[in-house]
């Protein structure tokens, strides 16, 4: 029986170092998909790689073996021993996997819930999978349903607005501090989707230069290319603090990336020019004490959310609504997925009918010799439509029972009733 499995890591399960070692560009995603295609036990596959998550979604008949080979593939990509990799992985199967991928697409599993970029990234991953021809009936359907769920979450709840308004309110605050953002300099520390969004908003407001710092320099260069920015190493942050006006942090580091002594020493060189920290990371990147320094303003994600009028209770309500939408879509997909189990029986039922028609036609072959070609064809059509009418109701009945736990007994009855397994019985 086909299983849908999703193995991967996100900002909650894995450290930033591990994620960055696994994170790959679209070229290597294609390569990864090609590897997945080579694995015999995997039927369909999709590989998603963003800076906050790396996951493989696949369907298989042999769950255990497929999981093993995907894990070893990941360990090869990231050059991480399997022993170290396994604790940071999550594994979802069947309905859970479906729910997970829908939550990811709807941005409910993001570091900043509702950030709009993830849907585009999931779509891109799907496009790559179709191009590499690793996606099939199930993944096609699943991805389309996920996009639909994401669209519903976006239009029916205010979760996405909250994320957009977080970066909007960061920009508004920056304007209240600096008045004009023209000519101001921004330092991005860490390169998450939300940081990119905030940076885009700031650039739209006239920010003149952007500097990107990241733990892995390569990734910093990648992000820097997006904004015509300059990439610097993590060690240069302290020097950059003397120069920039706005700092957007979004690393997944467990320790503070910007500390009180660092900012304090930078301030002597800054001549007290104001410095505005937007800390989107969870846990926080900027030591809270930094806010106590004169002319320094530190806003973390909760502070920014607090700026937005949407209050917490309302936001929780929106989250509940979003989860409900995802659940509905999971049910709908499950119903369709279960009909897949019915398909082999329906196919053999149709095959059997076709066999009977062919056999009967062969028997009556001689008596047809006087008839014209047109008449023969009319008779064939007639036979077919009678046969189809007869099996139509049983087929509909089976499809209706597809999501019932008693489905197997219905399938058994059908197979016995129509003697669909006669070949195997004959062989015994």
């Amino acid at each position: 029986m086909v299983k849908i499995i999703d193995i991967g890591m996100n900002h909650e399960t894995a450290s930033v170092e591990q994620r960055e070692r696994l994170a790959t560009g679209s070229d290597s995603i294609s390569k990864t998909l090609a590897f997945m295609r080579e694995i015999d036990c995997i039927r369909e596959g999709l590989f998603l790689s963003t800076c906050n998550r790396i996951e493989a979604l696949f369907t298989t008949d042999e769950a255990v073996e497929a999981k093993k080979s995907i894990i070893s593939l990941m360990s090869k990509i990231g050059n991480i021993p399997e022993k170290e990799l396994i604790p940071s992985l999550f594994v979802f199967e069947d309905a859970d996997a479906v729910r997970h991928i829908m939550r990811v697409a709807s941005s409910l599993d993001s570091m900043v819930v509702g950030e709009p970029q993830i849907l585009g990234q999931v779509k891109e991953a799907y496009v790559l999978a179709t191009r590499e021809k690793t996606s099939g009936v199930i993944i096609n359907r699943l991805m389309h349903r996920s996009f639909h769920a994401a669209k519903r979450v976006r239009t029916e709840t205010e979760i996405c607005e909250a994320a957009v308004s977080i970066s909007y309110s960061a920009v508004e605050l920056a304007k209240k501090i600096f008045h004009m953002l023209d000519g101001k300099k921004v330092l991005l520390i860490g390169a998450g989707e939300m940081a990119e969004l905030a940076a885009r908003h700031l650039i739209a407001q006239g920010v003149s230069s952007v500097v990107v710092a990241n733990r892995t320099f390569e990734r910093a260069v990648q992000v820097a290319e997006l904004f015509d920015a300059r990439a610097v190493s993590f060690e240069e942050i302290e020097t950059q603090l003397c120069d920039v006006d706005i700092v957007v942090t979004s690393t997944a580091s467990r320790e503070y990336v910007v500390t009180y002594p660092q900012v304090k020493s930078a301030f002597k060189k800054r001549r007290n020019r104001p410095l505005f920290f937007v800390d989107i990371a969870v846990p926080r990147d900027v030591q809270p004490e930094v806010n106590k320094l004169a002319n320094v303003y530190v806003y973390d994600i909760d502070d920014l959310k607090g700026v937005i009028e949407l209050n917490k209770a309302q936001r929780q309500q929106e989250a509940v609504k979003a989860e409900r939408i995802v659940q509905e879509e999971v049910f709908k997909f499950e119903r369709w997925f279960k009909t897949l189990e019915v398909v082999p029986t329906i196919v053999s039922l149709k095959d059997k009918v076709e066999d009977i028609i062919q056999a009967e036609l062969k028997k009556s072959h001689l008596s047809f010799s006087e008839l014209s070609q047109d008449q023969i064809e009319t008779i064939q059509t007639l036979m077919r439509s009678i046969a189809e009418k007869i099996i139509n109701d049983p087929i509909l009945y089976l499809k209706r029972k597809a999501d019932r736990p008693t489905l197997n007994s219905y399938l058994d009855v059908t197979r016995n009733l129509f003697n669909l397994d006669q070949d195997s019985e004959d062989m015994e």
Partner: protein
Amino acid sequence: MTFFWFNLALFLELLATGGLIVFLIKQQKRIFRYSYRILLAGFIFHTIFLISHYLTLGTAPVLDLKSALSFFSWSIICAYLVFQVKFKLMILGSFVVPFSAFLMTVSSAMSWVEGPVKPIFKSFWLTLHVGTVFMGNGLFAIAFLAAIMYLIQENQIKNKNFGSFYKRLPSLATLDSINHYSLLTGFPFLTFGMITGSVYAQVALGKYWQWDPKEVWSLITWLFYAALLHERLAAGWRGRRAAIMSIICFCVLIFTFVGTSFLLGGYHSFSNLGAR
């Protein structure tokens, strides 16, 4: 007639104050435009009053506290109008105009001092001395009010506690630069006013400096502002600390302006000036 102009100016300035406070609450530009025009009219009548008073007295009308307050009020509005043209910051009016109208009201509550003016006061140097010092004071008053606005706004942003003023007040950078510019322009006026004052003292009394309490306190005020300006320009002070310092400086200035006359006496004090 002179007092008619005074009362008219007072009335219009109070009206403008009312309008600007409504503007602060309602945030409608229309209200600001009307208030601004009323203020301009008030300012013109105030100027007419000062000129006519000057002509009556034959010298700058600052010899009693009533006249001095009215002149102070006029110079604040004058400084504000200049800043309004430069910065186009409507909300500044909602702070500055009530302050100057308050001084004007205090002035109106006092009685007129009548009588002849000592010939010693009928000097070009006095007018120059008083004119520049008051212009400096007017600018420092703007710096003071901008500093208060800065502290209100900074407090909201720092503590993430957004009251109704958050949207109404301008950005920290704007308030800081208003503070900066008004200090930068006010200081030369004060300096020049003190120099002309001492020249006047030499001409009138034969001594540049005679340790009169007001002279001493003026020097202290000057030193305070000099220190603030030095820190701003050389040490890169800005923001909260500069705002607090300019509030302290203005308190010293007000003490020099009013306090010294009543508490410390001296030939600058209004009671001595009034005994003409």
